[in-house]
């Protein structure tokens, strides 16, 4: 056990810090849940990519920097320290990218990864359907082969940033006689394909960013199939536990929120307004839990670098970070008192930072990427070995 960084790691940190200090936007970009903000975030991604920091752990040939996961953690720490913008292509770079890296053909890697790394192409996720949420194996959208194309019909929904994205990845039923986990194929779909209608859905934050996507005889070339035909479920699951569990939410994000929460607590107490006494402990516990998530991630990364794997324990992560994030934002709103009900522009709001937006966003955490109820079932059945029936 060695909990200090090597000189090379320290040098990398310094390099990342210097670059970010010089290049990260000083002003907060508009929300990437608006068209304007989406494009502003793509501009930022372009700059990040040109600086060589867009995808730190990816191979150089795909637009990365060939660093290992530890350096990725360091980069993330610096990224949040610099207050740099959220990653508009997170579904692509953190979820699909690693999957393509693992099961994609050489042509697919060459075709998709560099443009993903630069956010020239932004990806939306197409897992959920109206009748396939927690019960994802109930997917009904079909992709039937016709010559060198799949003909896609059906509906996907809750595609984050689907309103603006260029591509969608998802699972479709390629064998119409199949059911459940069998007969699904993982397909990469350009959203400008004729026959596709994207209908934005207004989210709880009042912004029209996620979308439902309708497919009406949309023809997609068969070379857009990722992994084997009919094995879509395995493709999705192979990496579900791996970098998804690790990369989607890096610990620096929560440490950053926790430090801001500690500051907010101190400022609120110093301002003389009433602070419920139990919040002192709640804030400390939040800070401590953000540390726990970080320590745990460093342990996971150390294990992976030593040749280990992540399996069902990704479900532990998902529960921990999503509930921590919600707790932190909920606590912040309690500290803000009456200001918590004001929108940031209201004259009496003062500097309420991003707590309200963050709270609304955090509310989604226990739902997306597999509800926490499903994660608890996975922990009970696959980690603890409790009976399914």
């Amino acid at each position, binding site marked *: *056990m*060695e*909990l*200090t*960084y*090597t000189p090379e*790691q320290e040098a990398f*940190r310094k390099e990342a810090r210097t670059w970010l200090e010089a290049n990260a936007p000083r002003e907060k970009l508009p929300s990437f849940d608006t068209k304007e903000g989406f494009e502003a975030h793509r501009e930022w991604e372009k700059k990040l990519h040109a600086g060589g920091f867009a995808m730190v752990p990816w191979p150089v040939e795909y637009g990365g920097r060939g660093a290992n996961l530890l350096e990725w*953690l*360091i980069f993330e*720490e610096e990224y949040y320290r610099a207050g740099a913008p959220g990653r508009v292509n997170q579904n692509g770079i953190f979820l699909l990218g690693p999957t393509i890296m693992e099961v994609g053909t050489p042509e697919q890697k060459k075709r998709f990864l560099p443009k993903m790394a630069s956010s020239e192409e932004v990806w939306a996720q197409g897992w959920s359907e109206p009748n396939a949420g927690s019960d994802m194996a109930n997917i009904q959208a079909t992709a039937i082969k016709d010559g060198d194309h799949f003909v896609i019909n059906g509906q996907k929904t809750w595609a984050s940033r689907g309103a603006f994205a260029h591509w969608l990845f998802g699972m479709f039923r390629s064998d119409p006689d199949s059911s459940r986990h069998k007969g699904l194929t993982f397909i990469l779909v350009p959203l400008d394909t004729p026959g596709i209608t994207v209908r934005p859905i207004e989210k709880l934050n009042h912004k029209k960013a996620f979308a439902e996507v309708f497919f009406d005889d949309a023809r997609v070339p068969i070379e857009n199939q990722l992994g084997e035909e009919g094995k879509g479920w395995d493709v999705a699951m192979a990496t579900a536990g791996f970098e998804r569990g690790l990369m989607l939410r890096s*610990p*620096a994000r929560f*440490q950053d929120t*926790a*430090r801001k929460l*500690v500051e907010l*607590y*101190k400022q609120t*107490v110093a301002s003389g307004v009433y602070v419920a006494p139990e919040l*002192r*402990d709640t*804030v*400390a*516990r939040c*800070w*401590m*839990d*953000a*540390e*726990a*998530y*970080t*320590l*745990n991630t*460093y*342990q996971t*990364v*150390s*294990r992976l*670098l*030593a040749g280990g794997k992540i399996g069902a*324990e990704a479900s*532990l992560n998902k*529960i*921990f970070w999503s509930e921590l994030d919600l707790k932190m934002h909920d606590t912040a709103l309690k500290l803000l008192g009456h200001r918590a009900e004001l929108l940031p522009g209201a004259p009496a709001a003062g500097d309420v930072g991003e707590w309200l937006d963050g709270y609304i966003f955090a509310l989604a955490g226990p739902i997306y990427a597999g509800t926490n*109820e499903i*994660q*608890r*079932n996975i*922990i*009970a*059945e696959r*980690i*603890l*070995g*409790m*009976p*399914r*029936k």
Partner: protein
Amino acid sequence: MEFNFTEDQRLLQETVRDFLAGECPVEFVRGQWETETGRSPEFWAKLTEIGVPGLLVAEEHGGLGMNEIDFVLVLEEIGRAGLAEPVVPTAVVGVPLLRECGDDGFAKEWLAKIAAGEAIVAVGQPASPLVPEAHVADLLILRSGDALHAVPRAAARLTAQPSNDPSQRLFTVEFDAAGARVLARGADADRLEAAALDRGALACAAQQLGACDRLIAMSVDYTSQRKQFGVPIGSFQAVKHHLANLKVALEYARSHVERAAHSVAHGARTRSTDVSMAKIAAGQAALDAAEVSLQVHGALGYTWEQDLHVWMRRAWTLDLAWGSTAWHRARLQEALFDGGLPAESFGFSPRA
């Protein structure tokens, strides 16, 4: 940066786990409840054979020369087995305290005895008047005024304070400070006592992980066997989610404990805060496990006969030893809000 145990450390853990599975089954633990002292010199001799009392003693004094990172894995196993022999006061707290007290001749003599299994040490705790296992100690290290004293048992007056956890024996102790050997005074005594508290708390936290894991395992077993409505009760989501929550709490507490072990072993400036976080997280995980395990065992868990309460009681009393969860919460809060002890985000800023 490598946040992992070595193969040797894992091997040591397995050795101790196998040893305790064979030598310290629950029948042994419960048997000790009924004996006069609650302790077993024969068992201590066996622990000495595998090197536990002298784990932190330097090799030149007959010990294994290991550190707290090695020891947390051993302590987790001790917690899993529910063993309450005086490993913590003697080997985890007593050894470094003697080693660092500055009286080298005295320390050397006792360290050699401890490593040879010939001496047991009891240590007074800053946050509690109760001294565990004082009745079997050859040497007691106790605070009086601004000094830490080394007191032979014969010179101490013990009053038994029967505990809710029959695995441990507690005492209040009086002694005549005027005639006792002084180990350290003033700032030196404070420093030693602070380090002792952190080591004791770390040792409790590691045992709490083991106890928590054991309670989860017992509950998984029981709920997989017990049938109601024609199915194992462990197939119900209400039961599954209870136990899944414990598993989440356990694994994140483990990260805190393992980091705190590193901080103690290396004397990190964040040592005390790191230890407090470990004690809070592991203590809460074990207390939650005690409550939930009882719930899923139903009325059966509420009997004296069922073994569940061996670990429930360990969870309750370990929480109070070496600073309760409440005490450590207060210390963490001071560090974060009042400029008390140093608290730093791991990784975030390059560390000195």
